[in-house]
């Protein structure tokens, strides 16, 4: 039995935060869960943590003192926390820049203030994608390599991590964990929220997006949420060994070719084609596909061109658990779960069908050329 630690977890209601909180509570620690809008901590499998197992503290990392009343903040700062595990972050794409600044950058600054005031060691949860658009092998010891950051999310997480480094130089003790793309449970595929890569999978497999600018050799790294939570827990426990270091919590790299091959195994699925970005022109897409492309796919486009590979030797040195060995097998597990829950496989009736049922197709309707034509959306496929 390890010693009983007093731990503050920020973002404790989030996907990663909740799983980390559940593990720390199960290990017998005294956990205070900083939550924003939620009043309970729900595990990834949908079960709530017993209310008396954890102290839920409503707060807001975007505000000074984490939005806590003076007394509550002083109690945390003065009473001495043994660890702060900072999971609070915006991970959705496509939000206004100021949201990322407020939560991911200012939020981290406020957490660092608490760590400094209370002398508490900090476990900072970042992202492997602070590497931005760098290609090739990314090491845990690297941060600022002059890389281009693809979006406001990456930019904010990069700056947050830079703040942690700066605080470390000023004496704050910290360890950084960088997950890649967090997805469902390694064994069951279960995931609480379908976001990011799941949305891309849904649009692609439903045939709403048929051609995507990208390269079959590009690689995406998917990591099971339970593995990430295990690494956070281990780093929190063994902070003395982890302090000052960065750990990639990465999983199974999959090329877009690997994705295509697995998707093709499922008969109801459409399989998108990846076309060279230089020969892709969104304006040539049919209106319907263009709407999905412009509103969703553009957010992720940069990831379909990168040939990133993450080195995780720090994590391998410290942790007992290793990530999934076979990326394609893991992807099948994830897809199977989505099929079970109905997230994938059975798209709801589309606009055309609804309008037909309501007798609203007719003279007033805008002709949407190519909408149902199977060849219509291949306009960008020619240069493959």
């Amino acid at each position, binding site marked *: 039995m390890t010693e009983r630690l007093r731990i503050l977890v920020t973002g404790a209601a989030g996907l990663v935060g909740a799983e980390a909180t559940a593990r720390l509570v199960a290990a017998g620690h005294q956990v205070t869960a900083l939550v924003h809008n939620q009043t309970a901590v729900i595990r990834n499998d949908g079960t709530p943590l017993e209310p008396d197992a954890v102290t839920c503290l409503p707060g807001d990392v975007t505000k000074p003192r984490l939005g806590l009343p003076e007394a509550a903040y002083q109690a945390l700062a003065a009473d001495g926390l043994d660890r702060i595990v900072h999971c609070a972050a915006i991970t959705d794409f496509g939000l206004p820049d100021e949201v990322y600044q407020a939560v991911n950058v200012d939020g981290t600054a406020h957490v660092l203030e608490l760590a400094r005031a209370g002398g508490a060691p900090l476990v900072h949860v970042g992202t492997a994608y602070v590497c931005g658009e760098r290609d090739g092998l990314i090491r845990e010891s690297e941060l600022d390599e002059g890389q281009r950051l693809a979006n406001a999310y990456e930019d904010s997480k990069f700056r947050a991590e830079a703040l942690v480094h700066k605080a470390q130089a000023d004496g704050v003790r910290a360890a950084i964990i960088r997950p890649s793309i967090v997805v469902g449970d390694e064994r069951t595929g279960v995931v609480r929220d379908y976001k990011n890569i799941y*949305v891309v999978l849904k*649009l692609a497999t439903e045939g709403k997006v048929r051609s995507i600018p990208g390269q079959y050799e590009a690689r995406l790294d998917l990591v099971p949420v339970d593995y990430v939570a295990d690494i956070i827990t281990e780093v929190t426990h063994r902070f003395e060994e982890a302090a000052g270091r960065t750990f990639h919590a990465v999983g199974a790299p999959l090329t877009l070719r690997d994705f295509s091959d697995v998707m093709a195994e499922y008969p109801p699925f459409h399989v998108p084609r990846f076309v060279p970005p230089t020969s892709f022109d969104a304006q040539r897409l049919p209106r*319907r596909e263009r709407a999905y492309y412009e*509103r969703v796919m553009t957010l992720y486009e940069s990831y379909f061109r990168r040939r990133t590979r993450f080195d995780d030797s720090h994590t391998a040195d410290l942790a007992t658990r290793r990530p999934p060995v076979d990326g394609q097998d893991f992807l099948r597990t994830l897809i199977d779960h989505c099929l079970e829950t109905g997230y994938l496989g059975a798209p709801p*009736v589309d*606009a055309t069908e609804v309008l037909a049922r*309501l007798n609203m197709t007719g003279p007033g309707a805008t002709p949407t050329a190519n909408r149902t034509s199977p060849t219509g959306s291949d306009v960008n496929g020619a240069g493959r």
Partner: protein
Amino acid sequence: MTSSTGTSSPNEDETRSKVYAVVGAMAPAGDATLADDTRLIADLAYDSLRLIELTLALEEGFGLGELAQERTATVTTLGDIVRLVTEARRETEAQRETEARQAGAGR
């Protein structure tokens, strides 16, 4: 922004009932009661992808031009959609008249 003063357009009631029909038929939570203050996400369980499909249905069903993302982004209730579609229909109508006039003048 189109002025909302003056007498309401003769087809505003028609627009409302059609918008209700489309939004209701496409709603993930199918059996909810519909009113102008019904919220698309909280009450009807729309998510971001279903909202895109709804936008396409409105464009197609009402013969509108493309509804820009900036205009659809602020929509939260059924009443917001009725206003947006009413406005967009007026714009489409005005556009057609202008085009007809220009075509006539060019003869």
